[in-house]
């Protein structure tokens, strides 16, 4: 291991520091982050230290880039590109190329070998899929998941991946993501997002083909606007059981309310249907044959199926109030409930949602 002697003179303290460390010391400096160190230096009004520390960071990168490969079977990505030129030629466009460009990652987290494992055996065997320590085409799903989670386990969006419905059904990272043949540059997806989801969720494809639907096929929105395919926290509505894989908003509420802000409230008079069991009480969010994505073709059946006075239900547990005698359901005038109860999602000024 190379040893280096570094020194710096701090004018403020009138002292000179001598540091003798190996290459890993530089790496730690890099990891500790030039920004934090820089802030400290700026607050100490010691700009010489600030610039010195920045240069140290870059020096650390250089040392790492020039550091010889360890003896644990890692040969470096340069060895891979000789044979896998087709992969390598475009790899600089891949998000994983950062591990090489950074120049400060240990071999097991750099380039090809960070995912596929130490390649010494593969090189010595002059190729062959079975000599790759981690060949994804030969891995079982659990191992493929573990391999990706080596780096991605602590990403916030993947924090619930171990218990997600996808993982339980053996749908893991490489079922949706294609690292070397991605069709989308941002998320390295094997196909366009909705095509990918439809390939398994065929019933959902049918829902988005209905005349009344959210505009997913049109490109205005995507599945991940509402869902987290890596698994989500328990929903804060509908007994926390369903819907699964739906990503609540940052403030813990239903994702529908992120766009439909007028339904959001808080209202002085809330319609409990919206808050207790969620928007799906009345609506089919993907698509519906009924206007307004309603679960029934006309409004009054949506309302009357709950507002029937059956015991035990509702706020007071004595039944959800049925309509009063002033309503004559034989008269078409009373069959469009929301003609009068216009603020059905919640009202500021009327507990019966008239205004």
């Amino acid at each position, binding site marked *: 291991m190379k040893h280096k002697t570094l020194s710096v003179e701090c004018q403020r303290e009138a002292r000179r520091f001598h540091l003798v460390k190996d290459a890993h010391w530089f790496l730690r400096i890099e990891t500790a982050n030039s920004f934090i160190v820089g802030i400290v230096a700026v607050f100490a009004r010691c700009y010489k230290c600030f610039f010195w520390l920045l240069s140290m960071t870059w020096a650390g990168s250089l040392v790492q880039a020039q550091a010889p490969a360890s003896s644990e079977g890692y040969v470096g990505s340069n060895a891979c590109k000789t044979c896998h030129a087709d992969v390598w030629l475009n790899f600089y466009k891949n998000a994983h190329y950062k591990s090489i460009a950074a120049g400060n990652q240990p071999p097991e987290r750099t380039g090809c070998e960070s995912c596929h494992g130490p390649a010494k055996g593969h090189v010595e065997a002059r190729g062959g899929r079975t000599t790759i320590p981690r060949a994804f085409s030969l891995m079982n799903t659990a191992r493929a998941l573990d391999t990706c989670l080596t780096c991605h386990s602590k990403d916030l969006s993947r924090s619930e991946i171990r218990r997600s419905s996808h993982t339980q059904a053996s749908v893991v990272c490489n079922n949706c993501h294609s690292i070397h043949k991605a069709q989308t540059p941002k998320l390295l997806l094997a196909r366009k997002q909705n095509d990918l989801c439809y390939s398994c969720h065929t019933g959902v494809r049918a829902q988005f083909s209905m005349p009344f639907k959210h505009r997913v096929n049109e*490109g205005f929105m995507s599945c991940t606007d509402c869902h987290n395919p890596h698994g989500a926290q328990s929903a*804060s509505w509908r007994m926390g059981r369903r819907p699964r894989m739906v990503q609540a908003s940052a403030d813990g509420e239903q994702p529908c309310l992120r766009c439909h802000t007028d339904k959001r409230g808080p209202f002085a008079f809330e319609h409990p249907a919206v808050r207790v069991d969620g928007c799906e009480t009345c609506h089919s969010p993907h698509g519906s044959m009924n206007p307004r994505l309603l679960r029934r*073709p006309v409004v009054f059946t949506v309302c009357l199926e709950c507002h029937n006075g059956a015991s035990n239900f509702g706020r007071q547990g004595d039944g959800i109030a049925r309509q009063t005698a002033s309503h004559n359901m034989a008269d078409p005038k009373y069959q469009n409930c929301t003609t009068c109860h216009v603020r059905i999602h919640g009202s500021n000024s009327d507990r019966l949602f008239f205004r």
Partner: protein
Amino acid sequence: MKNKLASMLLITAGVVAQQPVAPTPETVGRSRGEDVGGYNYTNQFETGYRFRSIGGNFDRYRSDVNYGNGIRLLGSNLTVHSKEGHGKLFDELVLTTLGLGNDPYQHASLRLQHNKFYRYDLTWRLNEYLNPGLTSGGHWLNTRRHLQDHDVTLLPQSSFKFFAGYSRNSQDGPALSTIQIFDSRGDEFPFFSNIDRTQTEYRVGGEASARGFKLIVLRGWQRYEEATSYNRDQVHPGANLTDNTTLTSLRRTEPYDGNTPFWRANLLSEKKTWFAANARMSYAGGRRGYAFDEAVAGTDRFGSARSRQILVSGAGSRPVTSAGFTFSLTPSIRFTLTNHTAFHQVAMNGNGSYQELINSAASFSAFRFQHLGIRSIVNATDASWRASRWIGFYGGYHYSNRRVRSREGESGIGFSDVVTAEQTNRLHAGLGGVRLQPARPVSINLDVEVGRASRPFFPLSERRYHSLGGRIQYKTRTLLLAAATRANYNTNSVSLFTHSARSRNYSFDASWTGKGWLSVDAGYSKLHLDTLTGIAYFASTRLVEGDESIYLSNLHHGHLGVRMNIQKRADFYAGYSRIKDTGDGRSVAAQVGERTGSALVAFRVVQTFPLSYDSPQARLSIRLYDKIRWNLGYQYYRYKEEFLASQFYRAHTGYTSVLWSF
């Protein structure tokens, strides 16, 4: 190599869901891009003209499809990457757009990042939507919604990251609402409003990693406001011409604004792949203040002159607290055990003073308040065991406990009539499944879930339910065959009331990309829904109890797509999508002797609602030069409701465009 890449792109492009006919998914220019300096870039822009010709209900078309005539940038894609990952100002720039300039659905996303220093993500969207409203004309809506999200991450590769974000959501445009005036049997009247609502969000946060732990803290502020104006100055006879009520003038102002500041913190850990933990906590305090002033003048249903003014002011609040903890144990690669506990509490409080003046005399004055508190605790344990390469099992037990507290009251003097209630619903659910892989290309997944709830809040909520599902897939490089089924059953019955819902879905999908120049994608789904619910209502002042609402839907959806590459110069795609609800098979709205859920014909005719929606399309794309393609597309839409001919429309839409790269 080039051929291999082209084949791969062709294959992946072939098996796609049927999208609107434009933009063209084909690509132009060198797939590897061009090198300039230390950067590589790829780009393509598709500019063209859309046209449409509509027959039938134009508003219905605008609500469902809404593509119009005109020139637009149908789509574009620009990528710039630094070759070595050490760009001076940035390392990656990815810009994609869709429908800019004229389409009703416009989308743009930008990512700009320097590997070491920053990452910036922008998403901008616009949706023009027309809601044709009720058949009586109420609730018509023609608005534009703009959504934008900006996110900046500083030091994205470091152990200490900082992020900031800004989101804005605005909706504006004309709308038509309704008001019912003077008394509960009065007539209803349409009136115009000019919607103007906005929500903005600011967020800042940081992320620190050390010793296998990661702490993420986010602080955000949401602010929302609405300044919609309402008016009606012309005399209107009302929706029901037999009613004497008239409206001569209406003025309403209803401004509100509010804010929701929130905190969110997450602590994540995963050690040596055998243990992972995730804790989170969030708190959002939502507040809203409002005022309402409405003045209407006209005649009541007895023909007497009336004026009414309503003045309301008050406030609403909804603080939300959420917390959760998840840990996962993976003692071996074959076995995973996870436990998730979540706590959620929301307390909704609102109050308002209400004052009503009839003919300038105080007629009614009250103070109203409501409280609705929901506290839920969820604990879910799931285990997954991979017994061998070809078989695995999973199962879980989930427990949820939800307490709902309610208080509401209304009084002009005291609060002697306050109603207070509390109830708790407990749900026990078990689920299990088996995964089979008898051969490498074949995978089978079977699952079952059974749940029992003690006290659901709504008659339609889950009480005694079970769900059965299965999926089988055969997948090779060139062929994908998949079949799936799912059945959901729920019964929620109490004394003298019943609710039963059954849904069964079946689907089959196939895609074949056997030839480099030919690919086929086809599928069929059937979605069956059958619900029976007890209802009660008044008909001519007589209370009807023990009636039933029966809803029956039988949806059939099929799609077929064929894609051909002709002589590596032209690409041709033809697709067809059809969805049809056959209802219960009847061909007229009301039929004597049919299975009926209600004593009222008005109810019976809407319980089944057959309609069909077809959309064939074709697209031709010809490569003129390496960097230029010419495209032509046509798509037809046909919407037909069996019982309501006024909703019918057919639309011919198409486009011609040039796809080019520089």
